Structures are given as C-alpha cells and as structure tokens.
C-alpha cells in the first residue's frame, strides 16, 4: 500500500449520429455526414455535410437535434472537417452562420483552401441558377472560413486544457484527414473517408497504434473486396480507347478535385504511350485552379509524385486542354472531363443532354451518384428521363422535358474508399477497443460488423439515423508514485531488461508493500500489533535439528510462501519468526516461540494451530 489518493470514476463516450443516410439498391449512395461525439464532457461535431439528393430542408443536418433553440457555440467545443467533399462540409456555412456557431472549426490546409471554392460553386448552382432562397451567401462562406484553424498532420492541437486533437493522413482526396480526439486517457478516432491503397496521385491512409476507445469508420464499401486497381484502370482505358477509335465522344462527369486528377494522370500517360491524337478537355475555371492546388500541396500526394516533382510536375498536363462550351458540337472524337460528377447540374449535364442521343458516345461515371440525380438514374439503366416530382434534383428542366438515353453508360468505381479489407487493415493498425460503423448500408454493415467482432473480439456498433450509441469506457486513473517506491518495487523483480530493447511480452509481477512514508507524511504513527504464542511439542531431536525439521515440514505444507532458515537457527515464514528452545531437564520437550505481526495474522494463526499438532515422524532431519 502506498499513499495514493484516487477516486475511481467511470465515464461514457456517447456518439450521436445526427445524420441520415439513404441508400439505393446498388449501395452506391452517400448521404450527409455529421456526427456528434461527447467524450469526457466535451462535445465535438465531426463533419458537417449536406445531402446532394435533396433540395429542401432535408439537405442539411437537423441541428435542432443538438439544441432546440439558440446557437451551437455554447454546446459545441469544436467542429472538425475531415475533407472537402460537400457531403462532409457542405452544411458548414449554414451551421456556423445561419444556425450560429462561433467556436473553432478545424481542417487541414488543403481542405481549408479548397472547401470554400466548392461551397461557392455549389452556392452558385443552387442560388444563382436555380433561384433558391434560404441558402447561405458568399459572405457567409467567407465569414465561416474565418473561423477555421488549419491543422497539420500529426500536430497535437490543444483545443482547450483537456481536449486535444491530432490529424492523420487519410488518402481519399487531397488534404483528407483522419482525426484522433483525446480527453484525458479517453480517445476516439474518426476516419472520415479514407483509402488504404495508394493510387496514382495519393498515398494510403496511415495511423499509429493509438488504441482509441472507439474507432468511427466509414463503411461505404463494407462488403466489397475490390479487384485490383490495375484491372479497373485497364478497363477504363480500354473503354475510352474503343470509343475514341470508333469516332465517339467520351464524357466523364467528375468533381473538380480528386478523381479528376487521378484520371487525368492515367489518360495523360496512356495518350503519351499510345501516341493518341484525339483531344482531351477539362472544363475550365475551377479545374485549372484545382491542378494548381495539387502543385502547391504536393506534400499531400503520394511518394512517387513528391519525389519527382522538381523534375516533372505530374499536374502539368501536356495532352489535356481547357474546354470551351463551343466545343460541344465539334465533330469527331474527344474525351471531356466536366463537372459536376453526379450530372445533377452544370456543364456535365449540358454536355450529356447533347450527346445522350448518339449510341456511338459513352459516358463513364467514375464515382457515386446520389439517389435522385440523373447520374443515379442512368446508372440504374433508365433509358428515358422525364421530369419527376420536384424533390429530386433536376435543375435545368423545362416543362415536358424528356430525354432518350442512347449512349453507352459505364460505371467505374474509382472512388477512393476503403473496402472491407482496408477497414480490417485500419483496425489492425489502430487497435481500437470498440468499433463504430457509419456511412454505409445497414445490411452490408451487419456483415462487416460480424466479421469485425469475430476477428478482433471487440464490440461493433452501427447506429442508425439520429440514434445515439453510448460506449462505456474504462479509463485508468493516473497517479503519482514516488520514484523511490517505484524503483524499490522494480528492483524486486531482479535485474531489469534493457528498457529500450523492444520485447514482445514482459510482465513483472511485483507485490507492493506498505511505505511507512505515507503515514509519516500524514503525521500519523503506525501502531504495531504483535502476537507471541508459545507452542509445546515433543520432538526427540536436538534444537537445531528441530529447526530443520520445522523448516522442512513447513516447506512441504506451505506452497507459495517465502520460508527461510536463518543462520541463527530460527525459521522465518514471511515475517513470522519461529524459535525453538528446550530446557536441559527435558530436552525432548520443545518450546516453539512464534511471533507475528497483525499483517500476518491469518498465517500466524494457521501456523500456531498447525505446529501444535506436532511434526510428522517421517520427516528427515537433514
């Protein structure tokens, strides 16, 4: 026992998923991400996404879930944005400027750079083109971004005295981060979207063995184990090549940043190798700028690009030129990258409408399409597009609008999400105590959940919309130990192995004993309670032989106790002293003097009873 003052406490980490995810049958759908974590009395919002499939209130997360009225500043300690995709940051200006939040918002530098551009782009489509009101303004985006504090990878940011966060590389898109949130000894890791295999422009996600209480992982591709990236790339190139060869046009709807750059690198090298002549275009404005971001944030790309960027910057394309609207009607083959990626508005939709009627043409969808978008419809094989109810997003419609889809529709998953294998890999890396799956389809998540629980024997949760998961954590209690005591106790274990040499398992079981220091410091004196007991027994041996016989006897009876035969003849069991004496008159009548302290009361009592019964005759005296 030592002077340790500790009050045990138990704590809970509760997670509230205040976002809804809707899924189509193909499982190729993303909702909006917005997760609320309460940990050690701190409330943190993870991502603040919008749903691209709605154009009404359901677009943004339901913040009344957090506070019925008033601003969020009082309730939230911080907001963390994992990456710049709108389903992760699209509701940020709405949340901070319209609902009201003035606290810190954390994101990485690339996210901070790119996110406002995508928000502005989206705002323009929604407000300027579709004429919607009740939406955030340009000024709101600017004001919102002023609240952003940039995060560096692996930097430990102290949000306040207790709350600290740390970002890890997540792959997925430029600047995507996983984030560790820590309060005391409790911690949560949120992955955002991540990618466990390096691709043509980004590296793989990485995290250290930080053993969080909870790992919150996306599970978009929960059951998929995707075929090799090389195969998919070959497939993609083959399809583009065939279409161009037969004089068709290829439309690739993309988000301005992310997959677009990867596919450009792919096509650029293919064109170079095959000496192709057909033009490749990239819709202007945003995308030109986008390539520039990649050049300036080259430290966030994969190792190969980083290593060679001085000699050749991979984001300076030779074959890929800027697109102009007037090229839409140009004859002959061409490949066009156009935004946005789900064909729900803008240039990509415009080009699609012009090219859809010709079966020689092809559209390649390189990522998800949210339910309700045209991209989603044509992927589901719809051949005739008509105006539907107003809740789905068909922005540039005219009354009676309809379209025959004759061109070939291809889906190529280049989306950089972790598949089942990748998710398991991340669990192995971080070694969480509990697992929480979000951002996926219930049935598939169920399958993954079983797999995780089987393989890692940890709890796996999958909360539904608006549901709260509470995970009890078991934080250990940090205390101060006097270095003297620690060293004394460590020394009991014998010579210590070199503490710097990693050893797989090293367990020293040492018993702590009472330090008198604690009492001394408290100004208390210890009260020694001792017992002495005389036991008589008949033993026809010399005193010293009797000592040995007692020693041997006790050795055989008491397992797991320290028994010593001291040089002065006495026998010691733990701290109990046994002394033998006899009078010259009666040499065979031995008087055993047992003396013990209260600490050894149980053993002392046992011994006095035991020895009263005498020593077995069979004991050898030697």
């Amino acid at each position, binding site marked *: *026992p030592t*002077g*340790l*003052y*500790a*009050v045990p*406490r*138990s704590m809970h980490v509760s997670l509230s998923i205040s976002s809804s995810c809707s899924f189509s049958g193909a499982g190729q759908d993303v909702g909006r991400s917005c997760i609320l974590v309460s940990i050690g009395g701190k409330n943190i919002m993870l991502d603040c996404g919008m749903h691209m499939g709605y154009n009404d209130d359901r677009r943004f997360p339901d913040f009344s879930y957090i506070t019925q009225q008033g601003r969020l500043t009082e309730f939230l300690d911080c907001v963390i944005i994992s990456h710049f995709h709108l389903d992760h940051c699209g509701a940020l200006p709405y949340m901070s400027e319209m609902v009201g939040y003035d606290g810190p918002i954390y994101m990485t*530098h690339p996210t*901070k*750079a790119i996110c406002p551009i995508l928000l502005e782009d989206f705002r323009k489509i929604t407000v300027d083109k579709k004429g919607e009101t009740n939406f955030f303004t340009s000024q709101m985006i600017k004001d919102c971004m002023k609240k952003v504090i*940039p995060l560096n990878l*692996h*930097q*430990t*940011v102290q949000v306040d005295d207790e709350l600290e966060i*740390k970002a890890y590389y997540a792959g997925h898109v430029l600047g995507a981060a996983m984030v560790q949130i820590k309060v005391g000894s409790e911690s949560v890791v949120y992955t955002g979207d991540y990618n466990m295999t390096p691709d043509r422009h980004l590296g793989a996600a990485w995290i250290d063995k930080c053993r969080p209480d909870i790992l919150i992982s996306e599970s978009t591709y929960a059951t998929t184990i995707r075929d090799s990236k090389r195969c998919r790339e070959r497939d993609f190139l083959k399809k583009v090549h065939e279409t161009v060869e037969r004089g068709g046009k290829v439309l690739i709807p993309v988000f301005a940043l992310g997959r677009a750059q990867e596919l450009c690198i792919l096509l650029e090298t293919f064109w170079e190798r095959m000496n192709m002549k057909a033009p490749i275009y990239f819709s202007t404005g945003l995308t030109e700028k986008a390539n520039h971001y990649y050049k300036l*944030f*080259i*430290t966030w790309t994969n190792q190969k690009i980083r290593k060679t*960027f*001085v000699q050749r910057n991979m984001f300076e394309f030779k074959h890929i030129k800027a697109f102009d609207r007037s090229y839409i009607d140009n004859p002959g083959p061409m490949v066009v990258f156009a935004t946005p990626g789900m064909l729900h508005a803008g240039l990509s939709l415009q080009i699609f409408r012009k090219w859809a009627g010709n079966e020689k043409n092809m559209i390649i969808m390189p990522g998800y399409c949210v339910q309700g978008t045209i991209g989603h419809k044509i992927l589901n094989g719809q051949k005739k597009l008509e105006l539907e109810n107003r809740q789905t997003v068909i922005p540039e419609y005219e009354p009676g609008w309809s379209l025959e889809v004759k061109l070939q529709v291809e889906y190529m998953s280049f989306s950089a999400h972790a598949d089942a294998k990748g998710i398991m890999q991340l669990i192995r890396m971080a070694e969480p105590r509990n697992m929480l799956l979000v951002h996926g389809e219930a049935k598939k998540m169920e399958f993954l959940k079983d797999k995780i629980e089987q393989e890692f024997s940890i709890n796996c949760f999958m909360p539904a919309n608006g549901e709260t998961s509470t995970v009890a954590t078991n*934080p*250990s*209690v*940090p*205390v*101060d*130990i006097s*270095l003297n005591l*620690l060293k004394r*106790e*460590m020394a009991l274990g014998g010579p210590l192995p070199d503490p*710097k040499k990693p050893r797989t398992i*090293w*367990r*020293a079981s*040492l*018993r*702590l*004993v009472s330090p008198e220091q604690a009492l001394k410091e*408290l100004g208390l004196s*210890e*009260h*020694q*309670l*001792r*017992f*002495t*007991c*005389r*036991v*008589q027994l008949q033993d026809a041996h010399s005193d010293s032989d009797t000592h040995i016989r007692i020693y041997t006897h006790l050795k055989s*009876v008491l*397992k797991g*106790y320290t028994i010593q035969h001291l040089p002065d003849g006495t026998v010691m069991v733990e701290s109990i002293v046994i002394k033998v004496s006899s009078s010259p008159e009666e040499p065979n009548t031995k008087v055993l003097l047992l003396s013990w302290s209260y*600490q050894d*009361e*149980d053993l002392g009592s046992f011994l006095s009873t035991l020895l*009263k019964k005498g020593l077995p005759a069979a004991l050898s005296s030697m």
Partner: protein
Amino acid sequence: MKLYCLSGHPTLPCNVLKFKSTTIMLDCGLDTTSVLQFLPLPLVHSPRLSKLPGWVSKDGTINLEKELKECAGRVFVDSQPEFCLPERELLDLSTIDVILISNYHCMMALPYITEHTGFTGSVYATEPTLQIGRLLMEELVNFMERVPKAQSATCWKNKEIQRVLPGPLKDAVEVLTWKTCYSIQDVNSALSKVQLVGYSQKVELFGAVQVTPLSSGYSLGSSNWIIQSHYEKVSYVSGSSLLTTHPQPMDQSSLKNSDVLILTGLTQMPTANPDGMLGDFCSNLAMTIRAGGNVLVPCYSSGVIYDLLECLYQFIENANLGSTPFYFLSPVANSSLEFSQIFAEWLCHNKQSKVYLPEPPFPHAELIQTNKLKHYPSIHGDFSTDFRQPCVVFTGHPSLRFGDVVHFMELWGKSSLNTIIFTEPDFSYLDALAPYQPLSMKCVYCPIDTRLNFHQVSKLLKEVQPLHVVCPEQYTQPPPSQSHRSDLMLELQPPPMPYRRCSVLGLPFRRRYERIHLLPELAKSLVPSEIKPGVSLATVSAVLQSKDNKHTLQPVPKPLPLPPSKKRKRVVEEPPEVLAPKPLLSGSVPLEAFLAVLHKHGITEVKVEETADGHILHLQAEDTLIQLEEDGTHIVCDNNEPLRTTLRDLVLRFLMKL
C-alpha cells in the same frame, strides 16, 4: 541528468542529453570554418593559384611546400578542404537513441555521427528540414566531388610542425579530428534514418520521455524542442527568430515552465540590424549595376536567399533594374526554389494565405516566369551561353573555398567595377577573401542574421522563466572584439551554466515522482478514508506491471482454484491463501477504556504494571500478557486461540484501519 557538449561552436551545436535512461543528441552541427585554412578549389584551372609559392620555415628546416602555399602573407593548406567534426571521443556514439534536429544548418554533421559509428537510433526532423538539409548536403558533396584533389595534406597537422606554422594555421584547434567531406552514399544512408515530425507533435521515446518540436521562426521547418516527462521539462532552444521573415512565427509560450532551458544559436552579428543590412544590400547592388559592374552574392542555397529574392522582387522595378539578369547557380538551385513553394504549412501566415488563392507563396516564382531570375546547376552547360553582363550572381559556397563562387572570384576579382556582397554571417569576410588577395573588386559586408539577439533573448527568458539556463560559454561574456559591451552577453539570475567543447554538465534537478496508472477495477476497489480535511488515504495492494517504461497497477490476481483431482484429506490444514495484506493500523489503545472492554468480556483479573513506555497487562486467569504502548501492542498468549482472537478484535476496536 547530464549534458555532454560535443561542439564548441555556439551556432552549430551538438549536445547530448541523458535523461531518464534515454540518450538524446540535440543537433549535430558541422563547423565548416575550418575550410578557411584551405586553398580554394577552382572549377577551371587557375594559373594564379597553381603558381602560389610553397611554404618553407624561415630557417629552412621544415619544408612543406607541397602541402602549404603562401598567398598575400597567409599560409593555406593545399588539399581537399576539411571540416571540424563534433567531438567523437567524449561518449560512445553508438549509445545514442535519438537525434533531434532543429534546423537544416544544424544537421550537416549527421553522416559523421550516424554512419560507421555503430549508431542504431533514429533521427527526428521536420519535412522541410529533411528536404532542404538533403539539398545542402548534396550540394556540399557535389562541390567537393566535381573537383577532386589528388593529394591530401597531413604533415602540417603534426603537433611539432603546427606549432611553428604562421597564424592563423598555428592556432587552429582539433586539427587531427578534421575530416574531408562524406560521400553521397553516407548522406543517403544517414537521411534514411530520419523520421518526419510536425510542429507540436508529441513523440514518445521508449514510453519514458516525450519530445515535441516547436516552431522557432528561423528557417523553413526550423524547430526548438521540448523534452519532457510528466514531471520534468527541458527546453532546447536553437536558432530562433522573432523577426517576420518567411517561416512560421516562433512558438514562445510552449517554452514556459521549463526546469532547464538549453540556449544555443543566438545571432552571430549582435550589432547588425537585419533590416538595415537588407537596405545596404539593395543599394550597393543597384549602385554597382548602374556603374556597369557585376554583383556576386556568396550564399547558401536556401534560407536568407528567399528573403533576398523577395526583397529584390519589390526593389528592381523601382530601381530600374528590370533588365538586369539575376542568376542563381547551384547544383540544387532548381530544387531549392521549387521546394520553397510547397511547404505552405511551414510558412508565415501571409505566405500561407497565398496558397489558398492558389498562388505560389514566394514571388521568386514570378521572377522565374518573367525570366528575370534564371537558375543553373553550374557555370558549365546552358549558363555559359545565356550569360550576360552586368549581372547579379547568387552562388555558393559562402566560405569562397569551393563551389561556383570560386570561378566568379577569379573572373571578377580584378575589376574595381564589380562588387562582392557578403550576406551570410558564418564566415569572417576578411578570412574568406584572404586567398584572393590582392583584390580590386569592392567588398561589402551586410551579414543578415535573423536569430535572436541578446536584447530579444533576455526578454524571452523573462517571459518563459526557466529555472536554469545552460548556454555556450561565449554567451556569458562580451565578444572579445567588443569587451566593453556588457549588453552583448547573457546576464541572468541565477547565472547561466556555461559549457564549452567537451564539457559534461550535471543538470540541477532531481526526479522525485513518476506517473503510474491504476486500472479502473483496482481504482474502484479502493476505499479512501479521510484522514485530515482534504486528505484521504487508501491502501493499495496491487501488482505492478511495467511495460514500455509505462507503469500500471493491476488488481492482485485471484489464485486459481485448486484442481479438483487433488486429494484434500486435511481440509482444515489448508494454509491460508496469499491474500491482500491487512490494513495498516494507526492510533493507540487507551488503558482505561481497554480495561473496561476486557471487563465487559468477562476478563476481570487484570494486573496492570507500569513500564517505561506504557503498561503491561497480566490477565492472570488466562495466563496471558498484553503489552500496551503508544505505538504498539503485543499480545503474548499461549495455547488459547479463541482467547487470542478475542483479544485481537478488542484491540483493533481502538485502532484506525487504513
């Protein structure tokens, strides 16, 4: 805790800290001032240098004309230049666990430490420090290897001979430890041991110590380091700057509450104001160009050159120098310029926000785009065809002993129209110029050293209040050339602990406590009792587990139940299990009250005897003795276990159990 000081150079430090069973090297600066003793390495054959007379002692007894050459009254070693390495004998370098690098100038000795010494640890540095440090090392190797010297001079190092050589060669120290440059293989191998860290990243070393780099404001990715355990904190301040140049500002507040602060890398030019120097630089440059002369700026390939270029970017339009070509020559010029643009995270706020536009953070991108600044790997190749005069040339090495700068010295030195402007503070410009004398070109000395000056550092120390300060001995007295300037030294209370090369300092603090964790199950089992107001006490019986230098207290494991097959005849005699120890007892047993209790339990015949320390109670009927003392009770009771236990419980009633 001990500090081993392996370098005597205050701005190129190399110290080793032993702390909590870890051995941490703080920087490994390479003292390159030794190269000033050597002849320059010309890129193309120099008739002037090859005709220099050899040195023979006055009495003719010592002839070193092969090794030493005389130029304008000074003697130079004609051999591959050599560097003064950190001390390698003071402690076994293979025992070093980690090396913390503070900035790219302070890592140039790394290959000497990590290669061929048995070093097995790792090196921590930020990404810009690694990348730019790599460039500087590659440049150095390139400078040396492209003009190899066949001979290597060693005779002059003989103690007896060195003694009679003219100064300053005579006074050169540690000459036997001087070494020629490492190879590119050594550089690659050394740098492969670097692990990247970010500012404010907490790095655990063996679970015993935590190290954290902090922004130091001096150069791209430059850092100070915090080395701490739960109870002790050492700050290592090296090359810090409070000026607003391109790097992220210095993080000062995290240095607070240090037990020890190791202070190195203060400005080498305490009396030169960097802003004023920059102004002088520009005006001298413009003056020379207008007069039709060329300007030579010997400089490192990274660092202040970015600021010079930025300054010129604003200056050349106003000064009507728009058509003057600016050349930057270095094997790593292109890489250095490119790398500077991709480290936005490590730059000052102003530059960071440019990236969001997105624009390159440094304006030299525009200078290159508009062809005002051109960069070449060396004077050979494209440069020779593009070369136009008058022009401005930035090139290394600032010592003027190797690199392309040697060529320009030979080329331009004879004309008084030309100007050489020194901006780097590491070398005395007079010594640097010595082997080129006599010279006609103008020399301007504008050393720009943005590191902390004495005024700034004393303000900083007042703010962060370390308990003790350790610094190179040079900082504890005024510079020898300005011995009256008592403001050019550190005056602190308590006075700083000075070190010099080969010092071993015992750092003044004692560790008393260590952090240990109670497992929740154990914590729950504790029953604290309030001993005094605000102080509760609970005894803890636990198993101590120490793993990775982390200590945990776990509940004592319950013994396994005995296997059922075992014959258990003597059930009664089963020894008690090893249980949690009994509570500690405290207090004392009052005689009267105890007698009353005995009486109540039918023990009436008690003979009380007073002793020196208390009383002896003789229970006559039971033939039992109880010795009552202030801090102890002794029960002597034979052959009556029930009585003994009764007495035990009665005594316990009076005592406090903890």
